[in-house]
């Protein structure tokens, strides 16, 4: 399998060098996988919508990926891009034109064949302000986006249907993340006739090209997905049926799993029960651990005294004992020293970060003119374990003389305070922490560390704006040639190194994901902690007890 992948990658790299064209080879399917069977998965919160233009939740993210497809996707369980509804693509040498050749014979669940018109329609729809898509901004590099977003045009002038199986994208600037953008849910292909039929209720009646179709949705209780027998990817999905039971408290769901009524917890293992599960060898063997494209951090408002002084921010970086914070959450994370998580391309393995050094922190504070510390506020979300983490940080800060009072608030209120320039001196990001939308280093910059995010209502809660770095980020993102991806990753590493020098954040930890499954579930471990098909790759898992 590994060899096969390597040869595919080598072949596509070669093709890219020749004319920057990539042709996909058929994906391999797990030879041990069995066909058939039904599973039950629980979720605590309701599924909001299954409209790919709108859905943006933990629960519906992977469900939408199983009902719909995009031009691009990722190798199961990895962050490696691959063409999906596209058969091949071609990038013009200037990096501003992308041409995709579509597969033939791909059918929507309603039986109609998907063509290039559907691709164009889907992108026109997602960028149209009337759709109210939270993901519209991802398509900002496509020509004509500004007119559509301003309501001046109905369609993107940069998307052209060349023929029924060819669609061309023209961009206003070279965009190295564009292939990722074509893989994100918001770019998934929807059939116009079904969208028009159901209008605002399309999210309740999803019709896509995906591996599963929705056959039942009892509001607030359950959703049933059944295998799409006409799925274009032969051999997938393995399961005949998935029942999602919703509104289940995680503790109750865990009890049900232990009794064999449930196959998987869609939510995390409840913290109160985590140690109990891990202490039982039988259960522990069924826990899958994986990294997440996530970083938990403390922001310091760089426009507010005394955090406008870089020495103060560096002192805070040295004052917090991250290992202890990780212990608070039962070691379900690894301490972080930079904004990017370890599994993200561009992560700098050689970067050591700020050491935990109270004496040095005190010295830096004194140098900054605060030998006796100062008083400040630390905002945190009010759900466990965030208040406990905030308290640990508060205690660490007290050691170097910083008296931080904790403002423990509902998520929406913390977000509001962070988006207000005079709102919050410090914020612990837990519960709202950044999870990447796609596995690319740029995804941790723009909205949370770039100047674009340092606006009222933005997510750059440290209000850090370094124009020089913004320019470097734009430069890195104009390196479109996939053959130069390594070079581009290095450029990004350098950007984050510089961010850490200015220390607007204290990176605290990268959460690890632990999924508990029943004994009958089969498939590679990385499918259960898939970095993109979050939380689980439904298309590729299977059950072992079918004949």
């Amino acid at each position: 399998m590994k060899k096969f992948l390597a040869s595919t990658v080598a072949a596509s790299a070669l093709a890219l060098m020749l004319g920057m064209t990539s042709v996909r080879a058929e994906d391999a399917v797990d030879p041990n996988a069995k066909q058939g069977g039904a599973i039950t998965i629980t979720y605590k919160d309701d599924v909001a919508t299954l409209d790919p233009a709108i859905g943006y939740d933990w629960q519906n993210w992977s469900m939408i990926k199983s009902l719909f497809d995009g031009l691009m996707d990722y190798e199961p369980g990895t962050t490696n891009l691959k063409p999906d509804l596209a058969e091949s693509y071609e990038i013009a040498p200037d990096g501003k034109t992308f041409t995709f050749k579509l597969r033939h014979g791909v059918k929507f669940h309603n039986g109609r064949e998907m063509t290039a018109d559907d691709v164009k329609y889907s992108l026109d729809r997602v960028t149209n302000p009337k759709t109210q898509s939270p993901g519209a901004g991802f398509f900002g590099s496509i020509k004509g986006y500004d007119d559509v977003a301003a309501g001046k045009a109905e369609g993107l002038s940069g998307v052209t249907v060349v023929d029924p199986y060819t669609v061309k994208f023209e961009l206003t600037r070279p965009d190295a993340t564009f292939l990722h953008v074509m893989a994100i849910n918001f770019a998934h292909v929807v059939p116009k006739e079904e969208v028009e039929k159901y209008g605002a209720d399309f999210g309740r009646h999803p019709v896509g090209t995906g591996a599963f179709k929705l056959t039942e949705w009892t509001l607030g209780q359950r959703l049933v997905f059944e295998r799409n027998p006409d799925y274009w990817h032969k051999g997938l999905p393995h399961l005949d049926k998935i029942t999602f039971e919703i509104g289940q408290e995680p503790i109750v769901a865990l009890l049900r799993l232990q009794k064999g009524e449930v196959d998987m917890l869609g939510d995390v293992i409840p913290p109160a029960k985590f140690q109990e599960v891990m202490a039982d060898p039988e259960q522990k063997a069924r826990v899958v651990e994986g990294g997440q494209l996530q970083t938990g951090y403390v922001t310091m408002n760089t426009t507010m005294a005394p955090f406008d002084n870089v020495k103060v921010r560096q002192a805070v970086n040295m004052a917090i004992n991250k290992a202890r914070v990780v212990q608070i959450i039962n070691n379900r994370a690894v301490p972080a020293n930079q904004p990017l998580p370890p599994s993200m391309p561009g992560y700098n393995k050689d970067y050591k970060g700020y050491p935990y050094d109270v004496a040095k922190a005190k010295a830096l504070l004194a140098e900054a003119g605060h030998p006796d510390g100062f008083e400040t506020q630390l905002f945190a979300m009010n759900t466990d374990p965030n208040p406990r983490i905030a308290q640990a940080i508060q205690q660490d800060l007290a050691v170097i003389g910083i008296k931080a009072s904790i403002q423990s608030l509902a998520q929406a209120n913390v977000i509001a305070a962070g988006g207000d320039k005079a709102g919050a001196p410090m914020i612990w990001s837990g519960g709202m922490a950044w999870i990447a939308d796609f596995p690319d280093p740029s995804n941790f910059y723009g909205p949370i560390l770039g100047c674009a995010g340092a606006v009222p209502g933005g997510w750059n809660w440290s209000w850090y704006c370094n124009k020089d770095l913004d320019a470097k980020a734009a430069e890195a993102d104009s390196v479109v040639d996939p053959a130069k991806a390594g070079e581009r990753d290095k450029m990004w590493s350098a950007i984050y190194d510089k961010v850490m020098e200015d220390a607007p954040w204290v990176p605290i930890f990268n959460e690890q994901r632990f999924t508990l499954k029943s004994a009958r579930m089969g498939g590679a471990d990385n499918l259960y902690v898939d970095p993109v098909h979050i939380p689980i790759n439904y298309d590729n898992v299977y059950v072992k007890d079918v004949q």
Partner: protein
Amino acid sequence: MIAYLGRRLIQSALILFGVSLITFALLYLLPADPVRQIAGRSATPQTVENIRQQLGLDQPFVVQYWHYLTKLISGDLGRSYIQRSEVTELIVSRLPASLLLMVGAILCELLIGLSMGLIAAVKRGTATDQTLMVASFVGVSAPQFVVGLLLLYVFAVRLSWFPIGGYGTWRHLVLPSLTMGILGAGWYARMMRSSMIDVLRQDYVRTARAKGLARSAIIFRHALPNAILPVIAMIGIDIGIFMGGIVVVESVFGWPGIGQLAWQAIQRVDIPIIMGVTLVSAFAIVLGNLLADIIAPFIDPRIKLR
């Protein structure tokens, strides 16, 4: 009677109007921006403003409230911000579950509460009386979250008598009803006890006893019907307490009612759902009180409607 009814109906409408205004104002003043919740973390400022405009949230408070009210009068509760479905549809689909739980809970609390109160009154001053009253006090003060998890653990996980949460059969209904009922049972036990003690002190009871009637006949044929009526009349008022409890109990048991809907909506500042559930609950409470007041004189002739 008709004048009374008309007056009460106008009062009820005014209360509902007041509830809608206060809730709307509180949600408007909330230091959280619903548009940021809808737009998510990757939205550009332009996307955020577009959504704000589409939802009419850039309008002043009075205009927003007026829009809401005019739509409300035609029965339209709007569309959920997050779920993007009609709020009416979301509530209607979950209302049967909540009503079922309410019926179950009322049965539980009456059954448990009235029998406890009756026994305590008859055995007044004894150890049984005291034990029952302590138990009723515990019932009233125990947090429903704890009671629910405790019942789940003992009867569903350990003993496997009932399913672990969920919805569908009568067996699913027992534990959540019991959890809700235990709180109410405490109140009913106390009311029933004092009502029964009152009745047992009445002259006619003494006369019956003097006639040589059997103790059970006195209690069940003469005293109980009189003692129970004022207690039963409390059910209408009970709906208020009930509406407060369903949020917790439905979440613990995964019961797909409007309490669970409200809880999820509150966490995500989904204002149309919060408004809708609040109004429906307020309506239920107002209706319950109204019915209780109208029925009271039929049950207890000493009460006159004016």
